[in-house]
């Protein structure tokens, strides 16, 4: 896809997020929206995957370590064709395959159950190690929150990945700067994130705007070309990106929009989509 097509798709992914969380009357729109562009890039451009064959052993893997942003991943999967986009309206409903956090047993295209923060990265490391042992060529991607990296297990996993030189592993940190209790640097600062991963023997790529597809492409190309060590992409993003009243608002970490807010959010996204069509 070219940049405009990716941007248009990201608008659709965002609509799916807002629709799902609104229908669920619960969920995490803020961090789903900040990561909507990276979800789109991974599933429509970067990863070697086939929605017709979600269990292909040779596919690239993705582990959503920040599992609470499942609405974003679900929306990307649905738009990529893993299941009907209509299903997004069943998010968090009883009997739905779209659980509050990703579940490998329920949803086509989910490579690992996750949601208890800090655990997903370890599974991703295990997958990358597994590929190395069998000399398989697939790559493994995992997305972490900047609050999540307060969990000690993240650094256990990072130490191991660096030690094992897992260059088929790409760790992405969604640095939107906010966690439930407030700005990350006020709650318990994870900064400097880049230097921490460097110290754990990662190749670190800092992305100034993780909501920009040119910058994402450059970062993932560089990660792919990096040999002999794992890569960490630390990307600055805007929490709530694309919905005017949610942007950079900590209150929208884990709250669903009411009907009125939903209408405004969808109007924002419609407008963004139309602007892209003028291009």
């Amino acid at each position, binding site marked *: 896809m070219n940049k405009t097509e990716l941007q248009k798709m990201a608008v659709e992914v965002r609509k799916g997020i807002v629709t799902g969380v609104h229908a669920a009357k619960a969920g995490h729109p803020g961090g789903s929206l900040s990561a909507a562009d990276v979800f789109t890039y991974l599933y429509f451009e970067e990863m070697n995957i086939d929605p017709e064959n979600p269990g292909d052993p040779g596919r690239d893997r993705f582990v959503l370590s920040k599992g609470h942003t499942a609405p974003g991943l679900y929306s990307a999967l649905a738009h990529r064709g893993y299941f009907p986009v209509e299903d997004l309206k069943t998010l968090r409903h009883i009997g739905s395959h779209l659980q509050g956090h990703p579940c490998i047993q329920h949803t086509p295209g989910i490579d690992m159950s996750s949601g208890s923060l800090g655990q997903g990265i370890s599974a991703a490391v295990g997958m990358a190690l597994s590929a190395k042992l069998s000399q398989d060529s697939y790559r493994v991607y995992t997305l972490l929150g900047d609050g999540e990296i307060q969990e000690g*297990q993240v650094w256990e996993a990072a130490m191991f990945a660096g030690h094992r030189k897992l260059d088929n592993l790409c760790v992405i940190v969604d640095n939107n700067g906010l966690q439930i209790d407030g700005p990350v640097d006020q709650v318990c600062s994870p900064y400097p994130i880049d230097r921490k991963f460097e110290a754990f023997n990662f190749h670190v790529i800092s992305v100034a705007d993780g909501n920009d597809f040119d910058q994402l492409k450059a970062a993932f190309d560089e990660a792919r070309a990096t040999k002999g060590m794992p890569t960490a992409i630390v990307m600055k993003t805007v929490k709530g990106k694309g919905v005017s009243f949610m942007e950079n608002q900590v209150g929208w970490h884990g709250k669903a929009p009411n009907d009125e807010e939903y209408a405004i959010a969808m109007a924002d996204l419609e407008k963004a989509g139309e602007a892209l069509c003028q291009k």
Partner: protein
Amino acid sequence: MSEVKKVATRQSYGEALVELGREHENLVVLDADLAAATQTGKFRAVFPERHIDCGIAESNMIGIAAGMAATGKVPFASTFAMFAAGRAFEQVRNSVGYPHLNVKIGATHAGISVGEDGATHQCNEDIALMRTIPGMTVINPSDDVEAKAAVRAAYEMDGPVYLRFGRLAVPVINDGPDYKFEIGKGVTLREGQDVAIIATGLCVNSALEAADLLKAEGIGARVINIHTIKPIDADLVVKAAKECGRLVTVEEHSVIGGLGSAVCDVLCERQPAPVKKIGVQDVFGESGPAVKLLEKYRLDGKGVYEQVLEFVK
């Protein structure tokens, strides 16, 4: 009298892994800086590339095992019971149990027979913790023969398994020609109608010794080895309650949540009967030689015999 052959089940675990490793390319062994203690060093010596030392980071080790299982490997994640079931409980629950991944957890140094290291390393809670996880199979073998059979059976089944092993060398009791291991099937080792002693792990041998002493008193004790605590052999337990009327459970584990509780869970719904739970009585362990600790906590043959006698009199 000929010397009784004694083997620690952790050693059986290490040896079984080597044997299985020769047969199965997809078997990998994970360890957290305890390769000598957990005996996975034996596997490392033969298959260095398939032995993954994760360093002192058990939570991460369980997660790595989950990721490897999700990509077609059969990982045996090995550490002390305290760290496998205790420290990494939530990783086992959420990264292994919930996705129902094919991870085998080899937990050594369970119970007070850890000995001198003392209470911090004596895990008497692991069976309780592990059996609450939906879909988790929990196996506590009683000797060398059973431990090796359990490792093989764990490999051959699809799904998460918690295997409990000990540090102390214990008598080999299952070396008869008819011995057969089947997950979820208890084994009646002695017939008797006066009381049923249901034991697990190294306490199976204590139960056998107790039964011999009880026999001298004219008490016929049935001895049942429950090596699989989950899924438990409910029919065998119910049958014992029907035929013997009263039961004693024996385990090197807290009396809260372990074999005794699992047996009572079955009986309270299907065949209510008086049950005496012998085990670690809601206390922490302590340092000391393993054999002496088993005596002190009344989990040796004599201690079990005395407690059964008090119960049936």
